[in-house]
């Protein structure tokens, strides 16, 4: 009877041997038919990336440039294919962004380039690619990661978009500050949202879901920061643009509500350790618009205070808010034309765009800072659920 002698892990070289004719089966089972919510939910973060890299290492070890090229090309094309097919599914896009980035980091960490080897163990240094320099393929993978990132942002924006105006502007959570009727009675407010109405809580729950899934997938923390910053920009821009076009959103009480909502978003950032990611700063135009709704708007001193306070708003935006400002009761006056002229005169020397609305389609450029892994390739075992029994650990 053949004796199955288990090899010690120190004998494995951290490579996966495969036959050329099994390459299609590899990308099919590992990329095209892998469901993030199915089998993949139990995998170690980045496992598909490590598996692909270990196969690549073996092709490199064989000094087979053709095998290296076809594996890389099939990998890239398969990832693009699955993202074309399921590009509107957040979990799929997030999963492949995390794995594409991990693959890119592996290509650097094990490139043999000293700049990327500083945090390697001795064993990891021994696992560097032997024969081929894949710097040009790293650029292709990086370009792919950028495309996937942009697709992820679009996906998240589509989910958040219906919630923003309702949750940030329309739904009132602060009791007692909504408008007082001329009879002196308070308007009836409700702490329970109507069915189908999005609230700030809806937005916070959705942000939680996004953050949780990205963490589960092993997305680099630096990348999560960039995603969150981008989402907060979108929330701020959509909210401000809506405010700038609606008279019913330009009142003292709305300013109060917006400031409360912004504070809740900041609390969320604090809770997730994301206060330094730049997200809060993207809300500055909205914060200043909310403050503008609440400050006094009568005297020259008021005008000076407004001009120094509203550095993140354009003149067009400040003037629009002042024009739309609606007093809460009949005792308060609208903002006078003379006051608005004073503001315009004070701001006439500003060099700025004359545009009124923020660009909600603007995406900050993304970077993928190198993030080496402490995973030891020789210890990786492939779960049977991935149907990759044709790969041999070497």
């Amino acid at each position, binding site marked *: 009877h053949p004796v199955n002698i288990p090899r010690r892990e120190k004998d494995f070289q951290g490579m996966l041997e495969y036959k050329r004719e099994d390459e299609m089966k590899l990308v099919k089972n590992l990329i095209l038919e892998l469901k993030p919510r199915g089998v993949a939910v139990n995998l170690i973060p980045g496992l598909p990336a490590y598996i692909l890299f270990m196969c690549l290492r073996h092709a490199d070890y064989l000094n087979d440039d053709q095998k290296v090229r076809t594996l*890389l*090309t099939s990998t890239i094309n398969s990832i693009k294919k699955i993202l074309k097919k399921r590009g509107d599914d957040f979990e799929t896009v997030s999963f492949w962004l995390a794995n594409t980035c991990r693959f890119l980091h592996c290509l650097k960490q094990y490139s043999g380039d000293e700049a990327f080897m500083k945090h390697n163990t001795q064993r990891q240094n021994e696992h560097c690619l*032997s024969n081929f*320099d894949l*710097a040009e*393929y790293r650029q*292709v993978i990086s370009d792919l990661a950028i495309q996937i990132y942009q697709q992820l942002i679009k996906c998240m924006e589509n989910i958040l978009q219906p919630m923003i105006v309702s949750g940030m502007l329309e739904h009132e959570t602060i009791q007692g500050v909504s408008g007082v009727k001329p009879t002196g009675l308070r308007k009836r407010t409700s702490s329970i949202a109507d069915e189908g109405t999005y609230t700030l809580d809806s937005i916070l729950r959705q942000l939680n879901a996004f953050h949780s899934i990205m963490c589960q997938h092993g997305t680099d923390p630096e990348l999560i920061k960039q995603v969150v910053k981008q989402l907060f920009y979108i929330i701020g821009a959509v909210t401000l643009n809506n405010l700038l076009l609606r008279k019913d959103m330009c009142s003292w009480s709305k300013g109060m509500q917006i400031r409360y909502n912004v504070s809740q978003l900041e609390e969320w950032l604090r809770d997730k350790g994301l206060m330094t990611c730049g997200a809060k700063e993207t809300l500055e135009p909205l914060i200043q618009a909310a403050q503008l709704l609440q400050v006094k708007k009568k005297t020259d001193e008021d005008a000076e205070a407004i001009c120094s306070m509203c550095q993140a708003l354009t003149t067009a935006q400040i003037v629009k808010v002042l024009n739309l400002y609606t007093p809460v009761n009949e005792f308060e006056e609208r903002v006078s034309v003379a006051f608005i002229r004073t503001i315009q005169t004070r701001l006439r020397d500003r060099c700025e765009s004359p545009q009124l609305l923020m660009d909600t389609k603007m995406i900050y450029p993304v970077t993928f800072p190198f993030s080496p892994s402490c995973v030891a390739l020789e210890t990786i075992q492939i779960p049977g659920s991935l149907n990759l029994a044709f790969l041999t650990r070497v």
Partner: protein
Amino acid sequence: PRPPPRPRILLKAPTLAEMEEMNLSEEEESP
């Protein structure tokens, strides 16, 4: 003493757009 490792061979890569074009033309050719 171990001999120094021989320099790695740089593999030239197509751009992402070129890869997609090659992929599309291969899909058109195959039945």
